[in-house]
């Protein structure tokens, strides 16, 4: 027989986390405070790969991992551009993806923001001068925030998101 009291006395998590990062927590708290000023209660991001080397995707999806778990801060990654406030683009925009990038952006409701993540998305990076890329997301979409890096770390991406939200509330 389970003592019903034990359900309340149990700790909230089953395992202890050894990786609490105060800097991250502080940043997250700031973001959480800032988001409702512009976006209601959460920030919906649609990630779009326009030709990255996949490391940036890995770092962005790492934001959802237990170490970061950014959903706590009101940031969610959504499946459809129709649900998104922000389009987060990685890669130097290949010719083969240009059409799909435009259509994805057009499918988003206004107002909408575009964030370029990674050196290649910011200005073409090492693909500059290649026949196969347009070079930088701003060649094709209005970019509101650039987060450079090869690739930027999850924390750097989070800082970029914070800067975007901060700018948007101005």
């Amino acid at each position: 027989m389970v003592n019903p009291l034990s359900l309340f006395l149990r700790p909230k998590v089953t395992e202890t986390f050894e990786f609490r990062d105060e800097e991250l927590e502080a940043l997250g708290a700031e973001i959480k405070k800032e988001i409702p000023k512009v976006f209601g209660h959460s920030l919906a991001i649609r990630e779009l790969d326009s030709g990255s080397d996949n490391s940036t995707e890995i770092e962005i999806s790492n934001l959802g991992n237990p170490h970061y778990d950014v959903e706590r801060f009101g940031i969610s990654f959504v499946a459809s551009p129709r649900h998104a406030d922000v389009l987060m683009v990685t890669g130097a925009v290949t010719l083969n993806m240009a059409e799909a990038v435009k259509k994805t952006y057009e499918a988003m409701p206004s107002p909408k923001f575009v964030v370029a993540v990674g050196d290649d998305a910011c200005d073409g990076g090492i693909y500059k001068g290649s026949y196969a890329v347009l070079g930088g997301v701003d060649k094709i979409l209005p970019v509101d925030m650039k987060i450079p890096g090869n690739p930027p770390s999850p924390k750097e991406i989070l800082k970029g998101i914070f800067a975007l939200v901060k700018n948007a509330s101005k």
Partner: protein
Amino acid sequence: MDIKMNKDTAELLSIISGIVEEEPELLNARENEIYLRLSETGFEDAALALAERKFSLIGLFCAEAFEKKSGFTLFYVFKQAGQAPALVLVREAEKEKEVPSVAGTFPSASWFEREIRDGFGLDFAGALDNRRLFLHECYPEGFHPLLKTFKNGPIRPSEFPRKEYRFRQVKGEGVYQIPVGPVHAGIIEPGHFRFSVIGEPIFSLEIRLFYKHRGIEKLAEGKSPSECVALAEAVSGDESMANATGFCMAVEQVCGIKVPERAERLRAIMLELERVYSLLGDLAGMAVDVGFSLVASPFLILREEAFRQNEKLTGSRFLRGITIPGGLKKDIPDSLLNDLPAFLEKFSRAFETAFERAMSSSSLIDRFATTGVIKKELVSPLNLTGPLARASGCPADTRLDRPYGAYKDFAPELSVRKIGDVFSRFEVKANEIRASADLILRLAEKLPQGPIFAESTGYAGYAGHNLREANSPGATGYSLALVEAPRGQNLHWVYMKNGIVDRYKVRTASFCNWQVIEHAVLGNIVPDFPLINKSLNLSYAGTDL
């Protein structure tokens, strides 16, 4: 030319001499690679006989203005699974003249031939498929980026309306199509999947990739080897270390560079760290795709720990910017390496707990078992490689079959399963994480002291520790390197002229392995597709280049 051969390559030469009724022209040979030129009839006879002897076509690529030739030179790379030497049959081709296709004998040639057709405008007579591969409809007719006459730079995309890409047609009562992508519902790379479905089961799948084609091979042309490392690292982010190493090995072979022992050992440690974090992502992904995040989370925690370990050792979470032809750009201090055993011990304990949790779920096993079976018969014709081939009963691993660098002295434990379903791949990948952790421990033990960069390099552009080299005229030659990346065998071929890269061909494991997904999903239900896809975890970036 003074050509040195070892026992294995000499044996290959005698095999070919026995097949064809002519004396093959020996172009070049190195340890475990031999280049032969045959007449057209000789080539066709040899190709058939090699197929009978269970050789796979592991690579097929083209170079223009190779050595003193003016037209195109085709390189057909054959290798037997489990054997070290690579046999390269060299075939000359002229502009506007068709080359007979070998795709009927070696199905893996089909994508290679389409790739060459796009790159160089060379047509293959009797090819299985004449559609474009990496050049989508936005590229104008007659555009072939790898021709030397094309100077790299922005081009004018073709006008609308554009030509339509013809997918395979599947017709009949109750058949309907599900088009998916290129943009998918998640944080993943772009690609298009065209399902033909009867009810829930998949009747046919056709994939279309290369949305991420960034022109890496063209960008490498005319650059110094040290500049090209960043491009090799960008082939596929989660294989940065493997591709940087593969590229460097090819350059080192051309230039005759001897990499110091300490650098070889450190490279191998990093290669295994890369395998660990990559495969952890696969295990987590498989759990996520059956909706089981409780199982995925511990793997993701470990993965983040591995990334942080990488950053501690090299300054880069993806182990970038440290590899260079000749060795390493910087040493990893012993004080950091000494922490590895403690890290791995803790890691292994947590890993076993996480693995046990996965294995204690009958619903997870139910979803994994018998799903997405890859038959062993497909391994050689499609040149499948890596964990997915090993999960289908093919015990090949480049680190064991054709050891390079520190793997000559340190062998990983091989894991093989026979069934070839998602469950087998889950087990093989878990075993490979264990084997890598064990290997890192052995590699880090009694690490030799000494330099981390070769005394002499013979290529232009990077001074390293020797300023004289920066101005040296540099080597001319070509060589092939095979490395075992987390996803399987990657092929790097470099042709250098006076220390400068003239042609860089990279073929990742994903390029070959992608093609098997069309087979693996047959008869499975659509909701299992994401799981099958994740269990293969192929790189789009590494395929699209």
